[in-house]
């Protein structure tokens, strides 16, 4: 017993401050993230409202600013319905599996040169791994609900996520070829020296493909066949209610912010300012991410939903060949005297 006590104290005693510090850093990332998720939904409703010549939420608080909080409270107090023939453990595990990777990926996201929870060398690979396991939430939710609509929705959605992940992975290969590193901080620093050094220019096709794949990965319109209301009710989360549904909702918006953040870091120079003499700051990153998120909402208000076979065709027959061709092109150009343009 003594040995156990000393080992536990040895484990906590000297390193307690360090552990506490790490926990504090995690809270400092997750808390603003949750708030931005809440206000992203408000932003979305307002923007789409204005695009459709409506006012959007305007009743709760000034300009409807408390609407997301009211929505969260409403969802909290709703009953969670458990379908009788469902697999109970997996039914409640699915939302957790959907949101955990969406948050875990933030561990390696740099907000500034030294502002990062874990500065690891393989951070891009880590993010790829984390986003690739997000699909389990969808699959398990569909299967555990034991409902035809949920199952069909989850199959559609999972097939779509897996397909677009490949195109997305290939675009990241292009980025790491330019940056010569898998570390996100180094990737950003490789774009230093004004907006004409950003990777968006040499990798323009890859940037477009990355962003479209990101829209498809997060199951957003126009690729939201997973919840095509007119065909399969609401997709994989049709049986979920109350907080269990809210967690899926949170995961979708957290993923949107994550992919926008990655696009800003990898292609748009992250926290670097566009013009060299203006100081670099975290604010630049916020502006870039906000713009990309606006694009997400803009797409939703603009484009009609894709047909499912066309989604698959776009992913497999158009995006993957273009990315492979562009990677070969970059690799070839780097061997010529114009190679400096691609670094």
């Amino acid at each position, binding site marked *: 017993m003594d040995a156990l006590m000393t080992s536990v104290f040895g*484990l906590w005693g000297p390193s307690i401050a360090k552990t506490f510090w790490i926990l504090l850093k995690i809270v400092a990332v997750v808390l603003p993230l949750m708030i931005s998720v809440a206000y992203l939904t408000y932003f979305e409703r307002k923007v789409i409202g204005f695009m459709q010549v409506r006012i959007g939420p305007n009743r709760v608080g000034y300009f409807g600013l408390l609407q997301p909080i009211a929505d969260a409270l409403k969802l909290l107090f709703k009953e969670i319905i458990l379908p009788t023939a469902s697999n109970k453990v997996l039914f409640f595990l699915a939302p957790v599996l959907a949101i955990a990777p969406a948050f875990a990926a933030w561990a390696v996201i740099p907000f500034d040169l030294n502002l990062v929870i874990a500065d690891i*060398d*393989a951070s891009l*690979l880590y993010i790829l791994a984390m986003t690739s396991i997000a699909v389990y939430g969808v699959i398990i939710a569909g299967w555990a609900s034991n409902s035809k609509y949920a199952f069909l929705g989850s199959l559609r959605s999972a097939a779509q996520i897996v397909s677009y*992940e490949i195109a997305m992975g290939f675009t990241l290969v292009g980025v790491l070829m330019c940056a010569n590193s898998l570390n996100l901080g180094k990737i950003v620093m490789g774009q230093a020296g004004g907006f004409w050094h950003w990777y968006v220019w040499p990798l323009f096709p890859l940037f477009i493909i990355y962003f479209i794949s990101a829209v498809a990965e997060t199951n957003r319109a126009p690729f939201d066949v997973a919840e095509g209301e007119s065909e399969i009710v609401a997709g994989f989360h049709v049986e979920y209610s109350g907080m269990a549904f809210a967690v899926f909702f949170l995961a979708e918006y957290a993923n949107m912010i994550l992919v926008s953040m990655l696009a800003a870091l990898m292609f748009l120079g992250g926290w670097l300012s566009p013009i060299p003499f203006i100081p670099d700051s975290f604010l630049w990153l916020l502006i870039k991410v906000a713009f990309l998120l606006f694009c997400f909402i803009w797409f939703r208000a603009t484009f009609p939903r894709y047909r499912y076979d066309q989604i698959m065709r776009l992913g497999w027959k158009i995006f993957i060949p273009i990315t492979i061709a562009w990677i070969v092109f970059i690799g070839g150009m780097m061997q010529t005297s114009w190679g400096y343009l691609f670094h």
Partner: protein
Amino acid sequence: MIEFKDFVFFVLSLVLIASGLSVITSRNPVTAALSLVLAFFNAAGIWLLLQAEFLAIALVLVYVGAVMVLFLFVVMMLDINLDKLREGFWDYLPMAGFIGILMMVEMVMVFKTKQFNLPPLSETLPNASNTELIGNTLYSDYVLPFELASVVLLIAIVSAIALTLRDRKDSKKTNPADQIAVKRKDRVRLVQMKSEEKYVKPKAKERT
């Protein structure tokens, strides 16, 4: 005294063994596949403890993120009768046990070689990045075997598709180029016809 690292190792290995056992004992194939996912995760955790971060992340990325997803896809859609699968369990047990023991003996022989008792990378090369080292070795010293492996994989992909590709007669496959090229006159037909004559409502008397 146990260090924190050892504690983590024991937790990971215990969960790994438990989930491995659950893969072969669980009655539901979906649960079995999900247990295998858990086993992969814990194996990745143990590799992380050995500072093999590239291998750990690649395991999660490839096996958890891709292979097992497709596996689950198939398993979920099948209606597997487990009692039928378990028929003849006792007949095959001696053979399976023999193979199991053989594999164990082989593994012990491999573990006893000196390559398996190397000190961790952090002691030999303190500032080395695992990912970078693997990349350098793979693309310089072992470039030919590496390329050969990729060709073998390519052949496997092509042959798997060739084996399963059948042209269905009732397929509703469309050609996107044709769909885009459609003009108004291909779909809309204007017809000249007389407009309908006025409908005369029959009187109530006549109906009875």
